[in-house]
């Protein structure tokens, strides 16, 4: 039982990370109908900057995170302003591929800048610190992940629900032309979406790196698991991203914990693909996800 609870706890922490990354996808998608494949590499750049801040420049952890956020937000804003705004109205294929271009540049940039060997991840607490609760170790870093996710979600909720720009973003997501007609500046909305997405991607990246103890340039690939999360939750739903993220995190950790006991015939590493299997199932049965709008077209 303790083993199970331990897995559940770790799964929720992992799920929170997927939720953060998935939120980034969803916010950009809601604002501009763009799927940003470079989200994972924004996260990678952020995590590396934070690690360098702590270990090379000996900055405070929080200052380093702030620095990482600033860097990735800048990259996101510049890309949005100078590349994506010129692509408005172009086919989905082109827009998707252009974010893959950014993805390649960022990943290679990290490999050139920092090398491809694993580097230590910057963490506010040591791996051992935390509480023991009925045989379950609640790691301090995992607890922090969960708390930060809750706080960020609350902030985003407040932003979307009660602020002027949040309202503008929701209006744009609902009906872009009507939003333009009432005087909403769409450029600001797009920029905000990219800024928020890049910032929470960085925070997600820091926690993702902590969770895997060391980080290398493949870290961005883990962010791809946020795709199953947002598909499960519903791609245009903020709530969906969070719920989907946590479910995917839980499923992945539980399969990782039990695959060798229960289903060893499945071979090693099934937990790496269970999120994708769930995603395919969801797309077949309920393509709009748990909380999404029913508008995915089919043949």
């Amino acid at each position, binding site marked *: 039982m303790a083993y199970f609870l331990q897995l559940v706890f770790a799964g929720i922490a992992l799920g929170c990370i997927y939720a953060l990354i998935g939120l980034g996808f969803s916010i950009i998608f809601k604002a501009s109908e763009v799927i940003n494949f470079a989200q994972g590499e924004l996260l990678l750049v952020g995590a590396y900057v934070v690690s360098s801040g702590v270990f090379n420049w000996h900055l405070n952890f929080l200052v380093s995170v702030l620095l990482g956020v600033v860097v990735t937000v800048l990259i996101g804003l510049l890309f949005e302003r100078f590349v994506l705004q010129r692509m408005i109205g172009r086919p989905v294929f082109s827009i998707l591929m252009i974010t893959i271009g950014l993805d390649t540049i960022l990943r290679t940039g990290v490999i050139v800048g920092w090398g491809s060997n694993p580097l230590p991840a910057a963490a506010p607490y040591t791996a051992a610190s935390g509480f023991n609760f009925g045989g379950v170790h609640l790691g301090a870093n995992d607890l922090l992940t969960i708390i930060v996710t809750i706080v960020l979600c609350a902030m985003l909720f407040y932003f979307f629900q009660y602020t002027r720009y949040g309202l503008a973003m929701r209006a744009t997501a609902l009906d872009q032309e009507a939003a333009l007609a009432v005087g909403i500046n769409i450029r600001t909305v797009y920029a905000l979406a990219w800024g928020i997405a890049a910032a929470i991607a960085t925070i997600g990246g820091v926690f993702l790196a902590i969770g895997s103890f060391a980080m290398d340039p493949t870290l961005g690939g883990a962010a791809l698991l946020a795709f199953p999360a947002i598909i499960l939750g519903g791609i245009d739903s903020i709530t969906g991203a969070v719920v989907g993220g946590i479910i995917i995190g839980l499923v992945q950790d539980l399969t990782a914990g039990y695959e060798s006991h229960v289903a060893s015939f499945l071979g090693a590493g099934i937990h790496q*693909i269970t999120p994708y299997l769930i995603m395919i199932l969801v797309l077949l049965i309920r393509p709009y996800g748990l909380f999404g709008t029913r508008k995915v077209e089919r043949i």
Partner: protein
Amino acid sequence: MSTSPKASTASTAVSSSRLLGGRASRWITIILVVAVILIFFSVASDDWLTIANYTLIAAIAAIALNVLSGYTGQVSLGIAFFMAIGAYTAAYLGGNVPSSPLDPLGLALPFYIWLPAAGIVAALVGALVGPTALRLKGFYLGIVSLALVFIGQYLFLNARGITGGPQGRTFPVPAIGAASIDQQNSFFGIALTSGQQYFLLILIVLALAAFFVYNVMRSRAGRAFRAVRDNETGATIMGVNLFEAKMGAFILSSFLAGIAGALFASYSRYIIPNNWSLTLSIQFVAAIIIGGVASVWGSILGAAFVFGLPLVIDNFSLLPVASGPGIITGGDLNAILYGLLIIVFLLFEPGGLVGLARRGQALTRKFSSSKGEGGDPAEITDLPSSTGPQPDSENSTLAKGESA
């Protein structure tokens, strides 16, 4: 302007002059291409042949992706998976019969069985996956094809009997009679190195693939593919069966990818499952965008750029081979370049290198023809959307040239 009759006569004049000029330039291109290939074939060192061989194999796979993404407009990141299916089919059918129970399986069949079988099995898997994948559109398909790559890697890592597991396995070498082409052999009194023999084999396969795809795209099926890409509703109204068209493109693409995968694995001799990664798929996407979407020539140019260039850089030792902090290797430089070029081409020239060349051609024609006032500007305005029928007039030179 009320120039519609004038414009139409001008355009017929242009098309007839293009027909004549096209025929002459087509022959010149054929002769040039054959000459270049012959010269290269006889003088190139082993290193250069290696580079050429990898590039030509990549070109086959790029054509495969172009069938699906370029001509039919279906976003796919799954080509690495279908290449792997082809490669492992080849390995199972053509590999050595295991001498100990730990060895990966093999039936030791000859290459004229395993090479086509690689394509056929990949096409069958494509036909199996297709109905599920093609229910989805746009980025949904992109994400599912991405999942396919990861699911494939899991399967390959665990199917030790066929793939050798994480350690990988060796792949069979084509043999003509008793002459295995990884060694020097002489045919009709001409001694050919291993690289030269592979070069000929790969070139023949590439020429067949290019010729076939070029012709399919001129047929009813090819027009249906493009109609689906440009407007699904419109295509349906015109009587195109969306599902059939998409499945056709998907199966043809998988078939060619399987062949390319088998050749790639055979030429590499040894492959581990991690080689069939998402990065490989992304490189092919980069290749068709940089070379030219919906163009056979573009696939070849793009493959040369994305897969050939880093090998050339390494061959000249221009950049360090081992990576490290602050060190830029040939592969890194190339990755940054193709990442940048994806963005630049999509922004400014969606037709890729082929579109760029065609633009240059149109410009020179405009300046050389004395009074081409009516037709040529119209042609230039056509160019940015150069994914239409125009690529084909270029491709024909290649396809016919190399199959001749």
